[in-house]
């Protein structure tokens, strides 16, 4: 551990990677409890995988036009929100086959992404980074953007917390109270989309779902109040990310997979502690 602290002080790439990981973990710690409570874990999984479609299209457009606006990060954000809205609409208006729509978007987005990235030369490493994460992408400007998105997520959740709680528990009651249920639901999905994009940078599209739901699920084992669950989930997300990056540094393992592994192991170990609510 001492060696890790020393490396953090001397290696700016490592310290930047840790800060980026913690910034992303902060957002997932806040949004995760809503995802778990509203039972939209698979919707989130579908968004995180479908995002690859937007990334692939933007990588391709960047290759053929050379325009910097076609940044994969922007592509991921646009596609995450786009697919989030499609899935949200299917939840609201096409309930009978909602799971099928989620699966279709999941595979459709990934397929588009893989094909577009494949036709651009020398992008295999980039594809792997998007799939499994690469903490070393973060520089000072990316870190600022991560912190700005964190602040946005926190602010929206502070304002909308009780409304998210209401639509998660009973949409009918929210309709009766003249709440804009569809609008609130789409705000929640937008937050999920933003969090997915943040997490893709650190943990990768394939493993995002672990960080989005497991810290919240562990927190839910210890508390049954959403506000407390969010606080605990944020602390756990930061802790899991720190442990994951530390282990990754110590054993030279891929950071995304190590964070997901540490998170899943602690989740399994926590299960026997069920019902010890605070």
């Amino acid at each position, binding site marked *: 551990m001492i060696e890790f602290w020393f490396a953090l002080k001397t290696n700016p790439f490592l310290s930047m990677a840790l800060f980026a990981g913690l910034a992303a973990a902060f957002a997932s710690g806040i949004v995760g409890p809503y995802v778990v409570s509203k039972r939209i874990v698979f919707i989130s999984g579908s968004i995180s995988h479908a995002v690859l479609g937007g990334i692939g299209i933007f990588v391709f457009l960047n290759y053929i036009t050379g325009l910097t606006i076609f940044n994969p990060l922007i592509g991921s954000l646009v596609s995450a929100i786009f697919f989030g809205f499609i899935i949200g609409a299917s939840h609201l208006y096409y309930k009978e086959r909602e799971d099928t729509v989620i699966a279709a978007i999941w595979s459709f987005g990934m397929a588009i992404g893989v094909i577009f990235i494949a036709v651009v030369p020398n992008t295999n490493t980039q594809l792997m980074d998007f799939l499994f994460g690469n903490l070393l992408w973060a520089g000072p400007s990316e870190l600022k953007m991560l912190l700005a998105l964190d602040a946005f997520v926190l602010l929206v959740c502070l304002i909308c917390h009780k409304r998210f709680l209401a639509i998660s*528990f009973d949409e009918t009651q929210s309709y009766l109270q003249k709440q804009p249920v569809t609008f609130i639901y789409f705000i929640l999905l937008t937050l999920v989309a933003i969090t997915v994009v943040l997490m893709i940078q650190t943990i990768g599209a394939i493993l995002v779902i672990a960080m989005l739901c497991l810290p919240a699920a562990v927190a839910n084992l210890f508390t*049954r109040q*959403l506000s407390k669950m969010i606080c605990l989930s944020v602390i756990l997300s930061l802790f899991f990310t720190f442990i994951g990056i530390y282990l990754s540094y110590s054993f030279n393992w891929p950071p995304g997979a190590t964070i997901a592994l540490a998170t899943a192991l602690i989740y399994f170990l926590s299960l026997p502690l069920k019902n010890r609510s605070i």
Partner: protein
Amino acid sequence: MNQPIIDIKNVSFQYRESLILKDISLSFQKGGFYILMGPNGGGKTTLLKLIMGLVSPKSGTIRVNGEKPKEMCCTIGYVPQTLFFDSLFPLTVLECVLMGQLSKLSWYGKYPKAVKESALKLLSSLGILGLKNRTIGSLSGGQRQRTLLARALLCDPDILLLDEPTSGLDMEASTFIQNKLQELKGKKTILLVTHSLAEMTSSIDQAICISTTASLIPSNQLCKHYAMGVYHPGVEL
């Protein structure tokens, strides 16, 4: 006769190919206590949803307090038949009851102090104040229904719709709900969907059989209808 608080005229409702309600006309007076009965799938819950504005009729008009259902707010309190949720759902009893005044939430997400005080009073009057910090998933069926009744009453609605509120409850819990409804009789317009004979023999103003169409059932034939398992309108007993 006074202007009805709920006025339903020639309403039909269709879900895909199935005609659930056909040309129904009903009116409910302010402060009345009405029972809706009928076979499963007969359209009772659909009628409640139409009154609440959760679904729109294929034809006909519905007016609640003279307004279209979708335009009103806090006129109706609703107690659902069953509310499916995860037993781990992170929600306390007090938080659940406060959802009965969601429309009073400030833009930054805080309930006014008066709403919280009303919620605590209601919990007290329903005998569940001690449970206010318990999670909704840890409650018994009876405690859960009392919580949902408190939520429905929080905005002091003119109309109370209850969809089989005592379904699956033991005798004590059912009696508590029935007594509470008797207390509310005359103060609120109550529409109660039920299959329970005990609830029907209580002092109601009118029973209506909903089975695609609607028909009024004379109170002296009420028990006979259910005793014989005859739910359909127009059947001579």
